[in-house]
């Protein structure tokens, strides 16, 4: 670990004032479950670490007009999991539950979980996010790497376990900075990108921007009339511990009269970003969910997969994750262990 100065701002504006515009000079600390390891391995070596846990507004969970749920980015996952406002969004609850570690749940924050750095072992070994222009992952051991969106140098998979659920549910993100007055609300999916060179990170935030809140869409009366929104996450996990899933999927369905009217399917752990599958979603709309349909949607989700030398099995796992997330969202048996 390299020595750094430590800032503990008390307001969102103060946070912006201590963040540097230069990439890598400052890092934001929330729960620290990921950052501390990266600092200790010197994968990141910032001059200043900015702790955001003392900013009260980032820890709020509020119900806004139209039933929108606003969640501060520094809310810890255990608090989120237990909060009644989350009850209409089982996909998020199941994603948090799947993390299966009280330590990570109690210490980790929503924003930190979403923006944690990739687990790619070449990156974690200090060889860069794109590790030799993607060659190290392409030619080396890539059993946990991407099967979709991996044609460029980025072969890693997006680490977040909650982002697929948020994207499936149509959540948005409030981002502030770099200027004091700068504020924007963007779809959660727009926080992520596939970097094309080592200078780019896997998220779209500038070094001096801050993710402050996640906004979950509410139950507007007119939407209610079009059916009930149901959602689910399904992780394919090697074991019962907190290890990252081998593949996962989140599905959000609006079902009216037994028929799917709207669907969003997002895969996790399969691509450098959360992977929105319109192919899978399109198969569902206009039909009632059953195992055959869910299986076909799973197949559609991975039809374009381009597995690497040692991860073809993930295609099957991603397919099953999609199938089971859809079945679970529809309130049907998922099968499996």
């Amino acid at each position, binding site marked *: *670990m390299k020595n750094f100065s430590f800032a503990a701002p008390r307001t969102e504006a103060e946070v912006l004032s201590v963040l540097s515009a230069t990439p890598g000079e400052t890092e934001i600390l929330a729960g620290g479950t990921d950052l501390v390891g990266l600092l200790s391995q010197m994968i990141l070596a910032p001059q200043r670490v900015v702790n955001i846990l003392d900013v009260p507004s980032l820890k709020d969970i509020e119900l806004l007009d139209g039933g929108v749920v606003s969640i501060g980015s520094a809310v810890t996952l255990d608090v989120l999991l237990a909060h009644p406002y989350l009850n209409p969004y089982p996909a998020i609850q199941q994603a948090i539950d799947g993390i299966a570690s009280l330590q990570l749940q109690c210490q980790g924050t929503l924003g930190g979980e979403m923006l944690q750095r990739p687990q790619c*072992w070449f990156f974690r070994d200090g060889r860069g996010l794109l590790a030799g222009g993607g060659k*190290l992952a392409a030619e*080396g*051991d890539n059993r946990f790497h991407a099967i979709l969106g991996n044609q460029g140098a980025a072969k890693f998979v997006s680490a977040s376990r909650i982002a697929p659920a948020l994207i499936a549910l149509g959540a948005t993100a409030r981002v502030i900075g770099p200027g004091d007055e700068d504020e924007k609300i963007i779809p959660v999916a727009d926080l992520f990108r596939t970097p094309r060179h080592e200078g780019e990170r896997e998220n779209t935030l500038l070094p001096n921007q801050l993710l402050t809140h996640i906004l979950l869409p509410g139950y507007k009366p007119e939407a209610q009339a079009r059916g009930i929104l149901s959602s689910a996450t399904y992780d*394919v996990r*090697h074991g*019962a511990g907190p290890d990252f899933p081998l593949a996962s999927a989140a599905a959000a369905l609006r079902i009216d009269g037994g028929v799917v009217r709207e669907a969003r399917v997002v895969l996790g752990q399969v691509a450098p970003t959360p992977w929105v599958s319109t192919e899978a979603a399109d198969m569902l709309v206009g039909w009632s969910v059953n195992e055959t349909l869910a299986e076909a949607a799973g197949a559609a989700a991975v039809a374009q997969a381009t597995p690497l030398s040692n991860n073809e*099995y993930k295609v099957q796992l991603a397919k099953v994750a999609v199938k089971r997330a859809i079945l679970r969202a529809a309130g049907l048996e998922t099968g*499996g262990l």
Partner: protein
Amino acid sequence: MAEVVLSWPTKDKATAIGKRVKRLDGPEKSNGTAKYTYDINLKNQLIAVALGCPHAHCKIKSLDVAPALKVPGVVHAEPLRKSGDEIEWQGEMLAVIAAETEAAAREGVAAIAVEYELLPVFVEEDNLAAAEKAGRTSKGGGKVQTEKEPGDNDDEDEFADKEIARLLKEAAYTVEGHYGIDPITHCCLEPHGSTVEWKDGKLMVHLSTQNVSGTDDGFAKDLNITADDVTVHCDYIGGGFGSKFAPDYWGIAAARISKATGRPVKFMLQRDQELKLGGSRPSGYLHVKLGANKDGVVTVWDSQHHGSAGATNPGGISHTVIPYVFTPKNYRRLATNIKTNHAQARAWRAPNHPQACAMTQTALDDLAMKMGADSLDIFLKNLGTDDAPGVSGAKPSVYKAEMEIGAELIGWKKLWHPHGKGAAKGSVVEGLGLAIHTWGGGANQSSCTVRVHPDGGVETFCGTQDLGVGTRTVLALVLAECFGLPYEAIKLTIGNSKLPISGPSGGSTTVGGICESHRRAGLDAFAQIAALVGKKLAVDPATLEAVGGRVQVIGNPAKSVSWKEACTLIGMKPLEVKGNYDRGTKSPLSNSQVGGVQFAHVAVDKETGVIKLKKFVAVQDMGLVVAPQQAESQIYGSVIMGIAYSLFEQRLTDPKTGAILNAELKDYKLARIGDIGEIVVNLYEPESERSRGVIGLGEPPVIAPGAAISNAVCNALGVRVPTLPMTPQRVLAALKAKA
């Protein structure tokens, strides 16, 4: 004084031995007052951190530690290797920095300037053809045995070829298969390391070690002092599993730096270094053709296996344990060692046995599958009889009795189905499997000094160590039995090299050794006290027993004195008695060679390849069971470790760079609580076993889980997942290959 007769009390007489008690050091371990080496921090200490080589194979072109000395907080920097040195594995320490804080030491490490010349890397230990092509193989020995012997004019190799071919041809059933088990690391929760201090020319080492009595000379030798100037101390150790017997070069470096700087030095391996350097278990990959008669008894076994134990001494798994436990009348077994760019393997709990079991008892189960037979029947048939055993280690009758108990506990009759023919629930199928094992576990050398104070206090001094498995509890029970006292009353001082010498904890030899020395000392001390009491009560001392805090005429509390009163007869000074046992001495108190049988019940999701343990049964003999609760814990731990290497654990090395890819606990997959299912332990202790005396338990129960679980998965799927760990990727690949 009557001559001391070495014996254990019978089961009905025993008051401490064999009783269920709580672990003596449980509270200290639970509340954090137990100090492990990692917990020891000395005033004014420096923290040492080493630079690990980032490359798996390279030559050092230049190495300069001077820039590290400019980092604030860095006090000392020394190279461990020099330019021109060839480095053969990733993580090898090249230089060490000692600083005021760990952060400063790490920053110092980052400042070291090194230039490397990269050399070709070879890490594919499962790829014999590639290893041969790369010139990385060497013969690992082998043996051929046939019932028919070659004639004087026969070429032995040709004869063996022909004879084995004939036997295979004549066999009613044959099986040909590949079976493998990947390397794993010891993954000690407390890494290797020490905190050391030089004071007045003497060296104090707080060392995480399995060998308290035996490492002082290692420090002395490398530091040009004599062993009497070295004290090694270890009260608690957070895992060793066979990897912590020596000072290691980083321990010596810590001592050297402490001497150079005049300050205590704490040098524990960083987590990635622990997984790269701290120890690994050799891999093994076996190809076999076996033949069996119409009853399923193996008549001929013909196997070659290969694997790696690293770069220094590539000896893989010994051919002597192939096939495992079972001893067919005709066999040929050949081993090939592969030199890979990995740090040298270290002894891992029951060296050779878990791999041999996983690579060969799976083939026996495949025979059952091929015959459409019940695996339990095939295992039973291959046991032979006590007069004509088909197995080594324990007697066939013992294995058979243990199999019957285990089969009952796992519900074999009710749940077993032919391989791959069970009822599926959606994509989930279930299966049962078993495997058997053996281990020596004879007593190690051990000495102790036992003091009985005139006020009744009892204490022992012994240079043994408690690896976390119950050494303290066992010692206390043994002495409590000798003196008729509650086990909590016994005071123990262990874990220091200045105490009477006791052997290293390796090979499951500790429990036998310490029971020998302490039973001997305890019986001796009691005989001396009995002589005094006999005089006082005017009875023959040989008729006295210690029970319930009194010394009494056997079975007659009316003729007795309290323990305290008895001890006042000792006089002013404590009674001090030494106990000693020399390894290999025949004794009624201890023995060797145990057997064990394990059963697994698994569920497998055919869509995802995920396996879940539902139930695991471990039946184990160990002679006399001193501390049943701790013995059970030992077996629970073994089974969990076995589940880990069956389903999760593997050291992953990048084939291109030779980098260890999962040298962090977050990446190194282990079994978690949710993964282990129900574990049922049965201590097999009929009088025929109990009367054999104490035998070590540390290793045997960790041997069979690999084969038992693999066989259960095969029973569920009807297809073998050939290599451990059985990851979802491998399960899906095996299903795909079958389809």
